[in-house]
């Protein structure tokens, strides 16, 4: 065998993938949420010149990193079903992408 043979549990891979999905979904939820709620839109303005985009992306990145930290701590020594983790990742990313697609979030505009 050419490659090294030691084995690493699949938990860290599942944590990295699913947390990426959580980060994407958070950006999506905040993007559509800012359309639904003027209060949320204003609360997301962390840097005035960039408007609510600054909050959507800051909280999206925070959700990604925080969920990664937590999931990795929980799963670092576990062998999980990677297919299932990957499917969940694609679902989360897909939902996030849909909620950041203008025709979708503009449909919620009053």
């Amino acid at each position: 065998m050419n490659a090294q043979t030691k084995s690493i549990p699949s938990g860290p891979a599942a944590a990295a993938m699913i947390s990426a999905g959580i980060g994407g979904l958070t950006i999506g939820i905040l993007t559509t949420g800012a359309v639904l709620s003027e209060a949320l839109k204003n609360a997301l303005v962390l840097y005035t010149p960039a408007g609510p985009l600054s909050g959507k992306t800051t909280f999206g990145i925070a959700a990604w990193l925080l969920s990664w930290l937590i999931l990795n701590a929980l799963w670092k020594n576990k062998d999980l079903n990677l297919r299932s983790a990957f499917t969940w990742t694609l679902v989360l990313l897909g939902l996030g992408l849909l909620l950041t697609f203008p025709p979708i979030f503009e449909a919620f505009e009053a």
Partner: protein
Amino acid sequence: MVLTAREIWTALHGMVFGAAYLLAFTAGLVGLYSLRESWVTGKGIAERIMRLKWTTGIMSILSFLTVFSGTYIVYPWYRAPAPEGADLLEYPRNFLLADPNLSGWHTFGMEWKEHIAWFSPILTVAVLYLIFRYGPMLAQDKYKNLRWMIVVLFLLSFATAGVAGLFGALITKAAPIL
């Protein structure tokens, strides 16, 4: 020929950081696709993994530089509201919205681009981590599924950056930041 500070930042954002990221993708994809123990020797796998670490590491830095420079430097110039009586050419968002034939570049193009772009660094860093964590094992048949999952995440990171880059170029053509 003189470039303003805004034009230099816009070029750095799109044509240096963003374009370099998109170009580096091909190298990463080829490296990932050919990472199989039946195709490459042990030394070859070690070399490919090292190259993949460098490629995806540089791509991660570039993707963050692209979205941060876009969101916090270029975008504020784009969305700055035009004062009464101002020349709209200096206020790209207002310029686009003022013309029904151009408003779609903002309401669809920019609104999509500014959000979807942020998926790319998240996915690129996930790919980088998986390459570092699993390393040469990814070449083994046992890890074939994980290798393909990484390829899909890598393709998604490229696709999201590609959408953002394409709309960035088209919007800049319709309403440049001067």
